[in-house]
């Protein structure tokens, strides 16, 4: 499990009074302010973020230690990371995408199907995108109890029971 999760990025300054423009990657964009101090990618800088107003493509925010437009401009492109522990706990059968991505996928026979590359939802339930080794592209697996009976975050693996035709047809690869 990752110990830090990217929740947004600074895209520049807003106005001339030291506010910054931030783009949120959260499911609820305004939640970016709820995860306490956010740090930069290398962890060298930490910011307390206060949302002042919504603006086009994100939020205008006041960052701790940033008092001028020049300082805000210098931070353009900085990604903001929240500690994984700051995210609230979830009920059974609900998982953060960040926790699922990177887990090793095995089937009930013990065959390795690679790792989880991404999680999608196109309106018909969540789908895990697997990247099996030696295969050109990804395979999409519905995230249901029947098909994914076991998700073991501590040991970092998922057990799947794939339906017929999910893996053996070249059409299912990208």
């Amino acid at each position, binding site marked *: 499990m990752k110990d830090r999760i990217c929740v947004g990025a600074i895209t520049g300054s807003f106005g001339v009074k030291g506010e910054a423009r931030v783009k949120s*990657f959260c499911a609820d964009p305004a939640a970016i302010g709820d995860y306490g101090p956010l740090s930069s990618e290398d962890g060298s800088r930490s910011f307390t973020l206060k949302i002042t107003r919504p603006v086009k493509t994100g939020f205008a925010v006041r960052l701790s230690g940033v008092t001028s437009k020049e300082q805000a401009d210098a931070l353009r492109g900085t990604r903001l990371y929240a500690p994984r522990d700051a995210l609230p706990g979830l009920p059974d059968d609900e998982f953060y995408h960040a926790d699922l991505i990177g887990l090793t996928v095995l089937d009930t026979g013990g065959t390795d199907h690679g790792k989880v590359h991404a*999680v999608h939802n196109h309106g018909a339930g969540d789908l895990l995108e697997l990247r099996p080794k030696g295969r050109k592209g990804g395979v*999409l697996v*519905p995230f249901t109890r029947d098909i994914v009976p076991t998700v073991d975050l501590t040991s970092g693996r998922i057990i799947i029971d794939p339906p017929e035709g999910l893996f053996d047809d070249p059409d299912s690869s990208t």
Partner: protein
Amino acid sequence: MSRSVWKGPFVDSYVLKKAEASRESGRNEVIKIWSRRSTILPQFVGLTFGVYNGHKHIPVNVTEDMIGQKFGEYSPTRTYYGHAADKKAKRK
């Protein structure tokens, strides 16, 4: 203009045949279809279709809420990954 009611919902005949065969066999399988224009009917509920998006078959588990929609609505033709951040997935 919406489709006339007297015609009934449109479904490609091969989709109906494949769904019926799958239901009769009772096997757990992905029914591969290319017909994005077909309407989702009540008899498809509980089945898993692989709906072609021009590139690959996207698995679609049909539920009651999806009746009356078209298969193509659940199989996007463009990919956008975005960021995981605090997004959640629910196992149904």
